[in-house]
C-alpha cells in the first residue's frame, strides 16, 4: 500500500462518514436549523421593528448613561451614518446574528465554566478542545457545516457560537477558582451552606472575570460573523464577501466601517455596563 492510496482511502472514509451523519442525523440537524433560524428571525424582526433613528437614539442614551456623554454622541452619530451609507438592514442582521450567537454561547459557556471551576479534571479535559477551537481556521469547519445545516444563517450561527464559547468558559472557570481563600474561610466560619457559598461569595468575586469573558465572547462573535459571510450569514459579512468577489472596494470599505461602528458601540456598552455593576465599588 503506498501513501497516495492510503490518503485516498482516508478521504473516502471521511466523506462517507460525513454523508452517513448527514443521512442518518438529518432530522437532528433539520430541527437544530429551524430552532436557530427561528431565534435569529425573532431577534432580527425585533430589531427591525424600530426605525434606525430610534435605535440610534437608544444607543446614544445608553452610551451616555453607562459610558460618557461624548461616547453617547459618537454612538448615535455613527449609527445614523450606517443608515446614511445604505447599510442599515445589513447592520441590523449582523447585530441580530451576533446577539443571538453570543447569547447561546453564554448559555453554554458560563454554566460549563462554573462546573469546570469546581471540577479541575473537567477543566483539564476540555482544555485541548478549547485550544483546537481557538486555533482551527474557521473555513475548515464551515464547509462540513454547510453539508449538515445548509447555506444560510443557521450555519453562520453555529460557527459563531463555537468560537464565542471558549472565552466565556475559560474566564468563568478562572473566576470561580480564584475566590480568595480568606472569604471561603469566612463563609465556613459563618456557617454557610454550599449554595450560599456559591451565590454570596464565589459568584460575586468571579463576576469581573465573567464579565470580561462575556465581552471577549462578544468580540469573537463579531470576528466570526464577517468570515461567516461565505456561508450565507446575510448582513455585513455577506456584503463584504460579495464586494470582495466583485472587487467593489468602495462597498467593502463602507461595510467595514459599519462593522467597526457596531463592534465599538457594543464593546463599550458591555464594558460600561460591567464596570457600572461591579468595578466602581471595589
Amino acid at each position, binding site marked *: 500500500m503506498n501513501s497516495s492510496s492510503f490518503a485516498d482511502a482516508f478521504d473516502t472514509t471521511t466523506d462517507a462518514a460525513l454523508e452517513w451523519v448527514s443521512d442518518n442525523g438529518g432530522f437532528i440537524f433539520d430541527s437544530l436549523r429551524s430552532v436557530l433560524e427561528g431565534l435569529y428571525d425573532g431577534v432580527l424582526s425585533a430589531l427591525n421593528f424600530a426605525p434606525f433613528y430610534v435605535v440610534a437614539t437608544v444607543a446614544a442614551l445608553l452610551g451616555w448613561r453607562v459610558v460618557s456623554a461624548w461616547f453617547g454622541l459618537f454612538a448615535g452619530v455613527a449609527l445614523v451614518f450606517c443608515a446614511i451609507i445604505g447599510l442599515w438592514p445589513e447592520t441590523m442582521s449582523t447585530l441580530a446574528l451576533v446577539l443571538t450567537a453570543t447569547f447561546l454561547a453564554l448559555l453554554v459557556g458560563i454554566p460549563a465554566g462554573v462546573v469546570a471551576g469546581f471540577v479541575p479534571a473537567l477543566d483539564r479535559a476540555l482544555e485541548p478542545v478549547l485550544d483546537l477551537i481557538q486555533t482551527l481556521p474557521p473555513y475548515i469547519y464551515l464547509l462540513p457545516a454547510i453539508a449538515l445545516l445548509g447555506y444560510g444563517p443557521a450555519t453562520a450561527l453555529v460557527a459563531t457560537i463555537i468560537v464565542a464559547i471558549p472565552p466565556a468558559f475559560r474566564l468563568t472557570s478562572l473566576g470561580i477558582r480564584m475566590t480568595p481563600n480568606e472569604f471561603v474561610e469566612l463563609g465556613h466560619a459563618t*456557617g454557610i*451552606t454550599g449554595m450560599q457559598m456559591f451565590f454570596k461569595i464565589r459568584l460575586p468575586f468571579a463576576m469581573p472575570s465573567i464579565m470580561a469573558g462575556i465581552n471577549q465572547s462578544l468580540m469573537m462573535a463579531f470576528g466570526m460573523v464577517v468570515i461567516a459571510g461565505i456561508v450565507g450569514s446575510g448582513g455585513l459579512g455577506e456584503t463584504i464577501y460579495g464586494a470582495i468577489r466583485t472587487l467593489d472596494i468602495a462597498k467593502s470599505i463602507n461595510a467595514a466601517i459599519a462593522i467597526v461602528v457596531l463592534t465599538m458601540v457594543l464593546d463599550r456598552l458591555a464594558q460600561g455596563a460591567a464596570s457600572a455593576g461591579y468595578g466602581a465599588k471595589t
Partner: protein
Amino acid sequence: MSESDNANGELLIDCQSVWKIFGDRANVAVKAVVEKGLTKKQVLQDYNCVVGVADASIQVRRGEIFCIMGLSGSGKSTLIRLLNRLIVPSLGKVVVKGYDLATLSAADLRRTRARHIGMVFQSVALLPHRTVLENAAFGLEVQGIGKLERNRTASEALEKVGLADWLSRYPAELSGGMQQRVGLARAIAANPEIILMDEPFSALDPLIRRQLQDEFRQLTKELGKSAVFITHDLDEAIRIGDRIAIMKDGVIIQIGTAEEIVLNPADDYVAEFVAGISRLHLVKAHSVMSSIAEYQRAHPNSDINALTTTTPEADIDELIGLTMQSDRDGIAVVDSGSVVGIVTTRGLLRGVKGTQPDELAAA
C-alpha cells in the same frame, strides 16, 4: 486546672489534647504518635509530616478572654481554627458548649458556627461589593433572618463599635481600623457566646491598635462574651487577656494570668519574652510585700498602724504614687481589715526589676 478556676464559670470551650499533623502521610504519623509517643522532630524525620499543634489543651470559660500568644509558625492560627473545626484535628477532642464538634452533623456544625462561635480575621475579609451594613448583617443573612430584622440588629452592632454613621459606605472607603470594627460588628451581630479573634489588630498602627484593644476588652466584658484572642504581641495579650497561653513550635508552654507568667516564666523562652514587659501595672502588692516581722526587724521604731494603707491588688504604679506622697518608708497592705504585709521601697524596686525574693536573699 485547680478547683478555684472551675468555680469561675461554665466551661464553653474544652479543647482536650488536640494534635494537628499536616502532610501526605499524616494518618500514619498520627498512629505513630499514639502508639510510640513520637516527638515533633521524629514525626518530621520519619514521616515527613509537619506538626502544627501538638497535644494542646485549653479551657475557656464564660466571660473570659483567653489569649494565645506565639510567634509566626507557632501553631496559634491552626489552634484557633481547630476550635470551630475550620481545621479538623488529627487527634484529640474539641468540646464547645458541651458538644463534641466531631460528632455533630454538617448541618449542626453549621448551626453551631452560625449561632455560638463568631470569628474575626486578620485580613478582615469584608465583602467589597457590599456596604458596611450588609457586611455586618452577613452572618444573620446566612441564617435566613429577614432583611428588616437583620439590618436592625446589624446597625445596633455597628453602633456598639462606633460606626453608626457609616452604614451605607463600602469597605474600600474605610480605614484599616474601621474595617476591623466592621469585622467585629459582624461577629457580634449574630450574638454568639464565643468570639474567635485571629490576630485582628496586627496590621494596624500602634495608636489605633491600642485603642481597639481597650474597646474590644470593654465591649466583650460589657456583652458578657467569651473570646479566644490570637496575637504575636505579648503586650497585647497582657492588655486584653484574662489568661494567656504561650505557644512555641505547636506546643503550649505555659498558661496563666499575666502576673503569673511575668513573675514565674515556665522556661527561658517565656522569660526572654517577659523580660521586656513593663511590670508597673502587672505586679501587685501581694507579690512584692515583705512580712510584718521582716519589716519590724529592719525598722524597729516604726509603727505599723501609722503607715499609709492599700489593698493586695494595688499595682506597682499605684504603690509608687503612694510611697511618694507618704513621708514614711513603707505602705501597709490591708486585706479584710488586718495588715498582711508591708511594701517597702526596696520591695518596689525589686518588683520593677523582676528579681525573685529568694535570689535577693541568696545574694
